[in-house]
């Protein structure tokens, strides 16, 4: 397929259909509404089902149902709508069902505003819903990477029988870039022999549930989930190392913000300051070891986010006290500009001398 120009939200839809997503349940909210709109138009053409639910709570429970029946299924929303889905996400993780959830993040808390943000990092990575669960959270930085990770996300979900979340700030949903839909690297996916598709003479009934009345049973179930999360942590870390050979300082940034940081890095280079970037692509599992490894190479770290400081906590865990970790962020829908990041870097390095 030749490259075409697509907006992030449309590209998510095209990639999901290409990945064999058969059901989309959702509810419109800016800045991701182009996605349900795209799905409403394109899914019927692909023999798939789009359904606008009566609410986000209904949509995520429809996802639970379709996933339980073994279908590839997806939902999407933006921050306040994702908050509404948290109960369902916890149930889906508890019942061990695969699905993909997309969050195109806007400013919060509360209704916030429609402009881009990254302030749902805690919610996505630290378990926005209740209970001991984890999910792979992928944070692409371009429309191309968005489609690549979305398609792979369905495979990851199926491999581990667990929800996968794709997050992008509002800008990633709205920006237009050249894109080519590409198949992910092939994984050996287990058969969905647990799905509730009728016994068909099988001899036993498949049950999808997350209720364990006996605490010993519930603990046993949680330990089984934990073993799965450990596997994900071992296998699913993704990150990009950029310009980190001989850095004065290393910036940590993900998603769209990492691109703003790359422009700031170029500007610093013009002034003789060497700045590296570690870009976590999987926010969970977080690449802690990479930060620890690179802590020996730089004088300091700076986490740049469209939030008031969320990922910076994981950066500190990774750096593990070896070097100071600073934070710079804009919030509420404001986007950092390269010159402000350059100024922040100079302030830190000036103070470090």
């Amino acid at each position, binding site marked *: 397929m030749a*490259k*075409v*120009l*697509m*907006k992030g939200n*449309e590209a998510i839809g*095209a990639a999901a259909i290409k990945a064999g997503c058969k059901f989309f349940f959702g509810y419109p909210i*800016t*800045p991701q509404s*182009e996605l349900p709109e795209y799905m409403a138009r394109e899914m019927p053409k692909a023999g798939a089902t789009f359904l606008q639910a009566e609410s986000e709570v209904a949509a995520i429970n429809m996802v639970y149902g379709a996933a339980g029946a073994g279908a590839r299924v997806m939902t999407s929303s933006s921050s306040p709508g994702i908050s509404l889905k948290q109960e369902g996400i916890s149930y889906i993780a508890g019942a061990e069902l695969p699905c993909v959830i997309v969050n195109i993040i806007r400013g919060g808390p509360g209704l916030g*505003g*429609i*402009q*881009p943000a990254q302030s749902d990092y805690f919610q996505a990575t630290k378990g926005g819903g209740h209970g001991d669960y984890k999910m792979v959270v992928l944070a692409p930085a371009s429309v191309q990477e968005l489609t690549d990770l979305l398609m792979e996300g369905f495979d990851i979900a199926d491999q581990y029988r667990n929800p996968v979340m794709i997050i992008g700030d*509002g*800008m990633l949903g*709205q*920006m*237009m*870039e*050249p894109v080519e839909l590409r198949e992910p690297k092939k994984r050996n996916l287990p058969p969905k022999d647990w799905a509730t598709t009728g016994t068909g003479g099988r001899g036993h009934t498949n049950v999808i549930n997350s209720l364990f009345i006996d605490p010993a049973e519930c603990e046993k179930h949680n330990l089984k989930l934990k073993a799965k999360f450990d596997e994900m942590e071992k296998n699913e870390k993704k990150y990009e190392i950029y310009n980190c050979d001989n850095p004065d300082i290393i910036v940590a940034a993900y998603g769209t913000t990492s*691109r*703003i940081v*790359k*422009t700031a890095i170029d500007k610093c280079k013009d002034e003789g300051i060497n700045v590296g970037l570690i870009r976590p692509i999987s926010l969970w599992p977080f690449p802690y070891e990479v930060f620890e490894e690179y802590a020996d190479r730089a004088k300091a770290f700076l986490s740049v986010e469209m939030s008031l400081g969320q990922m910076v906590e994981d950066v500190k865990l990774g750096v593990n006290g070896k070097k100071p970790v600073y934070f710079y962020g804009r919030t509420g*829908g404001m*986007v950092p500009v*390269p010159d402000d990041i350059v100024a922040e870097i100079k302030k830190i390095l000036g103070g470090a001398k």
Partner: protein
Amino acid sequence: MLEDKRIRIVTGHYGSGKTEFAVNYVINLAKSGKKAAIADLDIVNPYFRSREEKGRMERLGIRVVAPEGKFINADVPALPADINTLLQDESYQVVLDVGGDAAGARALGRYYPHLKDADYDMFIVVNANRPNTASSEAVIEYIQDIERAARIRATGLVNNTHMLRETTVEDVLRGQRVVEEVSRQKDLPVKYICAIERIAGQIPAGLAGEVFPIKMYMRPEWL
């Protein structure tokens, strides 16, 4: 450009580059000494709207009509009353930046009583690198949908086929073939051939329409 009608309405498929064309156009108008104004009628897109370049345009003396102050990002389909001023005050050379698709053009429908006798051009902006407008048949369908929602007829075509900073002359020429085919079938003139400045000088002569160099005002420096 100065021969176009007083009111230039810029419409097209969602993501065809209408706003970038509209902003470039009104800036060119202002630089040629005209009393220029632009109205942001986009009630479909939440980001990358012409109102974001208000400051730059106002410094050039352009009147920018868009939701004011805290309403600039309000997620409501409301339009400022000043749009009527631009439609009626004949001292202004006006660009109307309309939202994408028929959904966006619907905002234009309410101005139909002011437009049907007025002096207007309605340009359809086409980017053939967008999957939904890659063929002349698809473009013609969009034109019909937009005309129905806007309640007025298109008067010209703009080939805005690009691949952002990666645009090649071949991209522009492939789009030109689509747009010229639409031109033949719909009996609409090709008015402009957009090209980023790097390649604008390499567009061959003899094509329908005038080469229109584009500065990427709407794209942030880091994107």
